[in-house]
């Protein structure tokens, strides 16, 4: 599969249906790259014309802004907006809820107005439109799956149902953790915590959440965020369940189960 960039589309005088905003984790983190590939595969299979920015993409500025460094945020944001506006981008899909939140809620004030969709909502609409068709008796049929709400998709943007609707198509048994939806417990990575050690405490946040997820008895923990992915994978490892419990992104679950 050749993944075209915005520059390639522009050179041919074409515009893709949607820009796939990969994000830094999706681009560089080895585990998250698999999610990126899974989502790109889905888009390709379904026949959606999409592009990435490739080497031209920069961090949205989210971690810098939340750590308190508005200068770096503004530098990243204004550069990105200039680029996106130059390409005339209208619609963006991303597999990172942090990028999603920043692009959707924080870029408009700086002159960047786009329709921004998180990949779980995008997958839901593809399923609703019948463009994604699931295999009969897919590999997750009857398995126990628990879903972890990321803070930036859930509380920050009130998206709780789309990811669950997507998971329902797997014919799996969905088990909720006690702290779910708007009461969901953070994985511990947000607010730039991903990039530093935790403060002194009695436990790590991802261990606490990993323990809770494992306690549901699920064999799959479904995530929607590359940072949650890292944190929960470590949390499951700490709980000693890395062999029996897999942490997978919703895009990966769908990619493995679609026709």
């Amino acid at each position, binding site marked *: 599969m050749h*993944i075209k960039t915005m520059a390639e589309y522009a050179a041919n005088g074409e515009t893709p249906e949607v820009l796939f905003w*990969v994000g*830094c984790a*999706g*681009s*560089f*983190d080895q585990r998250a*790259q698999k999610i990126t590939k899974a989502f*790109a595969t889905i888009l390709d299979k379904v026949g959606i014309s999409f592009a*990435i920015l*490739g*080497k031209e*993409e*920069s*961090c949205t*500025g989210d971690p*810098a*802004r*939340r*750590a*308190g*460094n*508005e*200068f*770096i945020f*503004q*530098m*990243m944001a*204004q550069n990105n907006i*200039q680029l996106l506006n130059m390409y005339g981008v209208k619609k963006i899909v991303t597999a990172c809820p942090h990028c999603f*939140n920043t692009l959707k*809620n*924080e870029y408009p*004030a700086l002159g960047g107005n786009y329709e921004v969709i998180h990949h779980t909502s995008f997958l839901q609409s593809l399923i609703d439109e019948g463009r994604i068709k699931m295999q009969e008796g897919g590999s997750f049929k009857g398995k126990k799956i628990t879903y972890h709400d990321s*803070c*930036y998709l859930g*509380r*920050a*943007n*009130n998206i709780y149902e789309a990811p669950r609707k997507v998971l329902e198509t797997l014919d799996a048994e969905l088990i909720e953790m006690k702290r779910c939806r708007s*009461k969901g*417990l*953070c994985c*511990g*990575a*947000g*607010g*730039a*915590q991903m*990039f*530093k*050690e935790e*403060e*002194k*405490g009695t*436990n*790590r*946040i991802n*261990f*606490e959440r990993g323990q809770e997820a494992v306690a549901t008895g699920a064999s799959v923990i479904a995530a929607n965020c590359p940072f949650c992915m890292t944190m929960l994978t470590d949390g499951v490892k700490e709980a000693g369940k890395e062999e029996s419990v897999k942490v997978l992104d919703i895009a990966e679950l769908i990619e493995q189960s679609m026709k």
Partner: protein
Amino acid sequence: MRIVQELLFVILFGTAVYLFSRKAGQIRKNILLGRDNDLNDHPDLRWKNLLLLAFGQKKMFRNPLVAVLHFFVYAGFLIINIEILEIILDGILGQHRLFVPVLGGLYPVLIGLFEILAVLVLTGCAIFLVRRNILKLKRFISKDLDGWPRSDANYILITEIVLMLLFLTMNTADQALQGRGAAHYIPTGNFWISGILTPIFAGMSDGTLEVIERGCWWLHIAGVLAFLNYLPYSKHLHIILAFPNAYYASLEPKGEMENMPAVQHEVQLMLQPELAANAPASDTMPKFGAKDVTDLTWKNLLDAYSCTECGRCTAACPANITGKRLSPRKIMMDTRDRLEEVGRNIKANNGTFTDDNKTLLRDYITEEELRACTTCNACVQECPVSINPLDIILQLRRHLVMEESSAPAEWTGMFSNIENNMAPWKFSMDDRDKWATE
């Protein structure tokens, strides 16, 4: 004799109202020390929030059992105020149960309803005392509440119980006196609760009963007026400020951080130097983020006064759950304490703030607390009265990083990675699309 009582009542009532409005004015002044923030857009949505969140207590119902008990206390308190109106008018005009002739047969029904509410308030408060002092729920035994805040909570509950008992005793004595045909005690019809309780007073003389009835009447109204004046010094102020705080609650998605136009402008000039020639030169250095309460918005300060220290935020905070020092409730309590201190300072120095070598940052809230926040919005989500502790945390973080360059070493590294490699990790920009070719 009657005129003395009337005079006494008018003085008592006038003093209470005067003292309360003076203190309320002081609190308003303190809140307006915050920086401006226009929150008057979309009045329709704001009224909806006021009705749902404040009147309807929507978020309280995230825990239905407690919500029902709290609703009894809230509704009881609100509705019994109608009876307080009669009591005040009686006091000023030297009348007894002024509304009886006006309402006729409806009167005992209304009082009966109030009495049922009074019993519900009583029960609710008693259960709340048990939850705080005997069951010792985690959020109530937290060290956030050590000292005055814990006593404050108990004083409020005990006062409400006492006020309700006085109200019920007064009515019972009244009903008994009515039964005996005592002068001045006009027949009202049967009250639902106190009507049953009259046998308690069976052996007492009319004189004793009148003393009990009058005594309870005076203690009840004096208690209510004293409680009114206690509010501004107490966490219980939320019974008033929850309403404006719901109205002014943010209508933006919780994930959105406030933009900083000054920085936006600076960076714009940096990226497009051609704009600089026409840009008006600014001679004042803008302040970045918040170091003290006066750097926060007035809504942050209204938040602080609206907090009733229930601790739902802290109970949901992932950092707090895992033993870190951060407690969103403490952030709000610190903000209020510091604001009160600044307000007293201004008052003592004839209207100008005199530097006291203290700030909200460090003297009240430490860097360690601020660093522990994951910006998960659980505290914002949980608050039943629309308080946003996260907004304060993020403004203090902005000060730390932009004014003091104070950040953990890993963050400094992350900043320079973003600046140089366009990603928070040290990867080459050229490798950004490597995954697509593998």
